[in-house]
């Protein structure tokens, strides 16, 4: 018999509320936002009916500390007249250092003192890639809020599978700056697989070949009963449709004998190159017409065969990661059920042809390569906020790059290998090298190569407060954890004394917390009072979330896992938290949340264990029945 649920007097029973959640594909060339509408995931259009938002931001000026911008089509149209203030393909600069991004860029990059993040000089001031991306995200957020008619509970944001830790962190920071609650970062090919796999319902091994505007990913997934398990992934986070445009641009510059184009001319040529590429997806030749600086008109034909000759080396470059994933996934080409093409650049016929030849199968091109990623993200967002749409669905993704540490002689020692399923935690023991040594420096890198200098530097930090001992006596255990967003965290403990060491992680190409804080202030241009009010409100929302989660947990497992006294203690703590969060003391609410967390620690642990036991017990019954 079902037990009736009766709420405490004075508390509202939360009816099953449909929470608003969106999936966002933050692309190099275009971005999209999608959500679930009566069970169906759809991309959301703007008032003009456009689904794709060009990822272009034009900076117009600064007003009361907040940027004035045009984002999307308007910015794109103005680009040639205001090329240095109109930022294209900002995704290529996310989480990158200056030396990585100078190539093929028309912008004036500057670095500030005390910051590792390069900034673009614009009329509105120096802006980081994170701030530019945040402008795009704000625009999409507003579009979703208008269309759905309410505040968003959260968003799933997609990133290229091959993004490293710094690029992922930068994306998350951009979302934070745009005022979005990030439910999860998910990999673009995985999102595409969700949209495709749930619709086709076909179990088995799927390959997702995702060639976007600026990034390339290849993922091999196995789909079994709602579980999307990534077997291997590889890619190139600086290879995409942009590079095809650049190949054509270089050809035009050579043919037209232009040696030193200024930013405006380069923008014009890049646009012409992109249009030619699109024309050549359907026709055998494209006419290029360019107005030169001296007013002369340069015109020429680009034939399909010439175009293919220009881009073939780039497409061949994508096949190297393809071969590697097959090897890492430990499968043969025969095991593959289908190859799904994702990303705008897979419209290029040569791409389809070469991929088809490589996998010896006709690639699937019947899904919309632009929208599928956002749609998959929307479905995952709906599951994560608890709307129970695809309740049985689970994504098991992997880390694309090996995580290593610098050892003697500038070599990288791998701690977590590429294609390990996340979340993952690995501990590594260190010891001291000198008598009485109280600190040590640790350098974390990502990449496959043996030399540190060939890998990407993620973070440098110092372990301090090691108790002085003779050399080699200390036993410092450093735990590296990659969470479900693919983001790294590090903790350390000296084992013999039990001293927890303080860790200062300095992200090599990331923003510090202080920088983010000040950007947040700038972007909202709040007075101190407003900031305090906002902090209080955030803390109250957090308290509500804790109360809701705990009440649900008590209802589910309270009787089974807790004694009467334990239940009473937790209920009392909840009541106190409700009472305190009605007040206006942000700090007090925060402290109470922390104390509730401590009181319920044991309960959380028991619930987790019980959940596993229940799963395994259920299986034993199934086996007996068979």
């Amino acid at each position, binding site marked *: 018999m079902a037990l009736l649920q009766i709420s405490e007097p004075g508390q509202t029973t939360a009816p099953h509320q449909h929470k608003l959640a969106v999936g966002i594909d933050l692309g190099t060339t275009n971005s999209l936002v999608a959500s679930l509408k009566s069970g169906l995931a759809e991309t959301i259009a703007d008032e003009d009916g456009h689904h794709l938002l060009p990822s272009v931001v034009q900076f117009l000026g600064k007003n009361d500390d907040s940027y004035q911008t045009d984002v999307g089509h308007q910015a794109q149209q103005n680009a040639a007249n205001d090329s240095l203030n109109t930022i294209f393909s900002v995704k290529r600069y996310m989480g990158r250092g200056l030396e990585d991004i100078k190539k093929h860029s028309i912008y004036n990059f500057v670095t500030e003192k005390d910051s590792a993040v390069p900034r673009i000089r614009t009329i509105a001031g120096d802006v980081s890639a994170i701030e530019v991306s945040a402008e795009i995200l704000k625009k999409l957020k507003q579009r979703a809020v208008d269309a759905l008619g309410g505040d968003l509970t959260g968003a799933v944001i997609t990133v290229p599978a091959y993004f490293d830790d710094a690029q992922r962190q930068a994306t998350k920071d951009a979302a934070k700056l745009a005022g979005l609650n990030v*439910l*999860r970062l998910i990999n673009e090919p995985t999102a595409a697989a969700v949209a495709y796999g749930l619709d086709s319902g076909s179990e088995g091994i799927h390959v997702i070949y995702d060639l976007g505007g600026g990034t390339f990913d290849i993922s091999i997934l196995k789909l*079994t*009963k709602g*579980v999307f*398990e990534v077997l291997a992934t590889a890619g190139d986070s600086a290879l995409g449709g942009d590079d095809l445009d650049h190949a054509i641009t270089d050809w035009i510059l050579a043919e037209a004998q232009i040696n030193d184009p200024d930013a405006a001319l380069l923008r014009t040529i890049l646009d012409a190159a992109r249009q030619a590429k699109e024309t050549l997806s359907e026709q055998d030749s494209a006419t290029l017409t360019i107005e030169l600086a001296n007013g002369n008109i340069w015109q020429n034909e680009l034939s399909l065969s010439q175009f293919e000759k220009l881009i073939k080396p780039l497409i061949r470059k994508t096949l*190297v990661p393809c*071969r*590697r994933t097959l*090897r890492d996934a430990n499968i043969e080409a025969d095991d593959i059920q289908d190859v799904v093409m994702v990303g705008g650049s897979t419209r290029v016929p040569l791409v389809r042809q070469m991929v088809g030849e490589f996998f010896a199968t006709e690639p699937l091109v019947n899904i919309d390569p632009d929208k599928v990623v956002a749609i998959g993200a929307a479905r*995952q967002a709906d*599951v*994560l*906020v*608890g709307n129970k749409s695809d309740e*049985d669905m*689970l*994504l*098991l993704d992997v880390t694309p790059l090996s995580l290593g540490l610098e050892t003697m002689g500038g070599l990288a020692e791998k701690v977590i290998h590429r294609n*390990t*399923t*996340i*979340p*993952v*935690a690995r501990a590594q023991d260190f010891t001291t090298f000198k008598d009485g040594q109280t600190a040590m420096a640790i350098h974390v890198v990502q990449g496959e190569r043996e030399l540190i200098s060939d890998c990407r530097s993620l973070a440098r930090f110092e372990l301090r407060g090691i108790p002085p001992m003779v050399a080699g006596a200390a036993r410092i255990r450093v735990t590296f*954890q990659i*969470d*479900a967003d693919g983001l790294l965290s590090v903790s350390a403990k000296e084992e013999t004394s039990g001293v927890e060491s303080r860790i200062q992680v300095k992200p090599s190409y990331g923003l510090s917390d202080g920088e983010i804080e000040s950007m947040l202030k700038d972007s909202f241009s709040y007075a101190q009072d407003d900031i305090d009010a906002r902090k209080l409100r955030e803390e109250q929302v957090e308290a509500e*979330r*804790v109360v*809701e*989660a*705990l009440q649900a*947990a008590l209802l589910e497992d309270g009787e089974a896992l807790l004694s009467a006294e334990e239940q009473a203690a937790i209920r009392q703590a909840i009541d106190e938290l409700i009472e305190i969060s009605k007040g206006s003391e942000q700090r007090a609410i925060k402290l109470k949340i922390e104390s*509730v*967390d401590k009181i*319920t*620690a044991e309960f*959380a*642990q028991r*619930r*987790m264990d019980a*959940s*596993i036991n*229940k*799963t*395994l017990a*259920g*299986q*034993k019954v199934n086996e007996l029945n068979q």
Partner: protein
Amino acid sequence: MTDSIKKNHPDNYFSLLGLPVSFAVDKKRLTNNYHDIQKSIHPDKYANATDRERRLSVQKAAQINDALQTLKNPLQRSIYLLSLYDIELGENNNSIDPAFLMEQMELRENLSQVNDKDDPLGELDTISDDVKSRINKIISGLENLFNGLLSADEQDDELLKKTSAQVLKMQFLNRLQEECLNKEEDLADQL
């Protein structure tokens, strides 16, 4: 003595994934159990939970992932089984017989000369098949050895030594197999 063996500990990887402690593993059951457990504890299922539960779920999911990786792979599984008897592999290489080491050196030399052959990929295939069959032979022997160890009432030190020696051999061969794969990748990239 038996009681102190960690195989009876409820937190061992086999119990975690609902399998009996043994070298032979029912792959289908392993995958099924793994999926079902992840469906109940994965961080995605705790997106709305308290911070404490979210943290716990990340840790637990990571542990289950680790357990799966260990049990899926015969070498990792063997090393893990030995660790339940407090045996750490690779500390003492004296136990390996000289004839085996000679063979290893020969195989390695063949591998290093592959590039000079007329058909390097074909030659590599031959070596790689040879290594694979040697590994498979060890694997089939290990099943009996571990069965003997795990079913014994008292810890059988002699048998434990014999088993460790075989696992150590497998580790050598696995490394060789990895080098074969790396070589294959190098050769394929040159094509």
